[in-house]
């Protein structure tokens, strides 16, 4: 059985969350700049340049790494924003850059050949040929896999692409299928998750209290209506509940969250280099709870035990958890 110690990669939307993640046992923390160069471009979130400098210093003093996500797709005519982000992340001492766009990968590989490059989940590379292309052409060292593969498929993939590392999501919000290519939110708001870093931008979201519950609106579209006694979810179209043939139902995906605590022995056995926790938009309390649970879980499995049972239902979207595609029975 493979017992390589996986790196626990944890989210931080603010310096306080980064400190919390490190205290809770993160091996690495991933962050973004306070602009459209990353896929969590939410108001009041993310790092200024001086904040990133201090955060990297704090992380390194505590033996943790800082990975900088610059994982949206540069817009024509505005590529300098993304180039500056790459340059600054390298200058400030980031341990790796998480990139998705081919042009930006080429820029980073050319200008900063010493920088460690990771391929973002936004690039949706999920087969050996695609992954090898990024490794051979741009020197990508690690690939964050899209959330569409089973554990057995990941194990087989690892055997084929070694020594290229893989990183998989172990907890948090789920996107539907072809990651990095979703335009649903753009139709309703005019802003793109892939270019502007905002899925359901807050400025386009409204919650309306009704007699029977809460309606969530995105632009002019009613995404969902939650009864008072129902758990709520994010106002994203992919998890909207729409009326079709007089029946309201989740047409694409239900509001549930990924939780692989119970799958950790299998995931560790699959030879994955890093386990990633989603949620840079979440608060310190989420970071503390989830990172601690996974720190304990990984350490328990490596010590020959089983992961402790920890219900994280109370903090996840829709109040429900799933093992996602890792255990999928469908094709």
């Amino acid at each position, binding site marked *: 059985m493979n017992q390589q110690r996986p790196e626990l990669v944890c989210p931080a939307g*603010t310096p*306080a969350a980064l400190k919390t993640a490190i205290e809770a046992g993160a091996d690495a923390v991933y962050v973004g700049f306070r602009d459209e160069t990353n896929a969590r471009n939410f108001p*009041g*979130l993310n790092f200024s340049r001086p904040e990133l400098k201090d955060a990297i210093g704090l992380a390194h003093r505590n033996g943790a790494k800082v990975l900088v996500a610059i994982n949206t797709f540069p817009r024509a005519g505005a590529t300098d924003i993304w180039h500056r982000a790459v340059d600054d992340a390298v200058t400030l001492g980031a341990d790796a850059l998480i990139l998705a766009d081919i042009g930006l990968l080429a820029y980073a590989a050319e200008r900063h050949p010493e920088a460690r490059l990771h391929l973002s989940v936004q690039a949706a590379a999920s087969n050996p040929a695609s992954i090898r292309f990024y490794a051979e052409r741009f020197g990508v060292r690690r690939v964050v896999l899209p959330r569409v593969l089973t554990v057995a498929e990941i194990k087989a993939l690892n055997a084929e692409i070694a020594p290229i590392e893989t990183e998989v999501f172990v907890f948090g919000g789920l996107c539907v299928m072809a990651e990095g290519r979703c335009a649903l939110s753009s139709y309703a708001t005019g802003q793109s998750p892939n270019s502007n870093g905002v899925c359901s931008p807050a400025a386009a979201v409204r919650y309306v209290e009704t007699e029977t519950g*809460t309606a969530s609106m995105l632009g002019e579209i009613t995404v969902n209506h939650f009864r008072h*006694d129902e758990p709520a979810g994010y106002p994203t179209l992919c998890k909207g509940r729409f009326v079709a043939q007089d029946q309201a139902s989740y047409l694409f995906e239900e509001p549930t969250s990924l939780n692989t605590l119970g799958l950790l022995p299998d995931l560790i056995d699959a030879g994955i280099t890093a386990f990633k926790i989603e949620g840079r938009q979440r*608060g310190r*309390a989420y970071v503390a709870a989830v990172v601690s649970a996974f720190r304990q879980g990984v350490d328990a499995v490596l010590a020959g035990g089983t992961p402790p049972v920890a219900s994280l239902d109370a*903090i996840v979207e829709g109040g429900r958890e799933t093992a996602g595609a890792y255990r999928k029975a469908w094709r």
Partner: protein
Amino acid sequence: MGPLNEAAGPATVGSNNRPFTPSLLLGLALRPVPLALIQPALDALVAAVRRRHPDLLERVSAYADSGICIDPTDLPFVLLLTLDPARPRLTARRALEPGEASATIRGSLDALIALTDGKVDGDALFFTRKLIIEGDTEIVVALRNAIDGADIDLTEDLAATCGPLAGPVRSLIRVAAGVIGRLGQDMEAVRATVIAPALARAEMQSARIAAVERDVARLRRTGSGR
């Protein structure tokens, strides 16, 4: 702030009903108190948070002209927060005029304090329906992120306003939080054993009455159709 870190609670969902919490008793006690007496404490708190967490206002600097209504549902007043970096204000008001606030954040005092202290996650409170948001969501998200990022500890911030009395005030807050926590557990026990079953019975009776009313209406229709 002490026992408030359980405000998110289990994965049950809340309701819009007024929460049965110690803060509700506090709210009843505060009802006859003029708000002018509360205001100096709020001013001191804002001054302390501003001094101790300067990055907070920087994160919400784009919303300097906006007012946010913070509505602790178990207190008899609301708080109007304005984010002008030069003069941020938290004002206690019985009610707001239309247009004074761009957004409203509503929840129990426990939940709002725990959120400010970073003891619970804002999205988790929202998912479990313990936090209600109305109006401009962008301002609320920005404020939530700024507060969470500021590493606020209200006990420490309040104590910091008290100069040489900081130590005793800190102890007093911790003791009060402990008492409130135990009172909260007692009130939850009362709610679970007395109030909840009574409400459930009342709901069952309402359902029965509604069923009878439907039957009567159907019989009337059938009768008039003959």
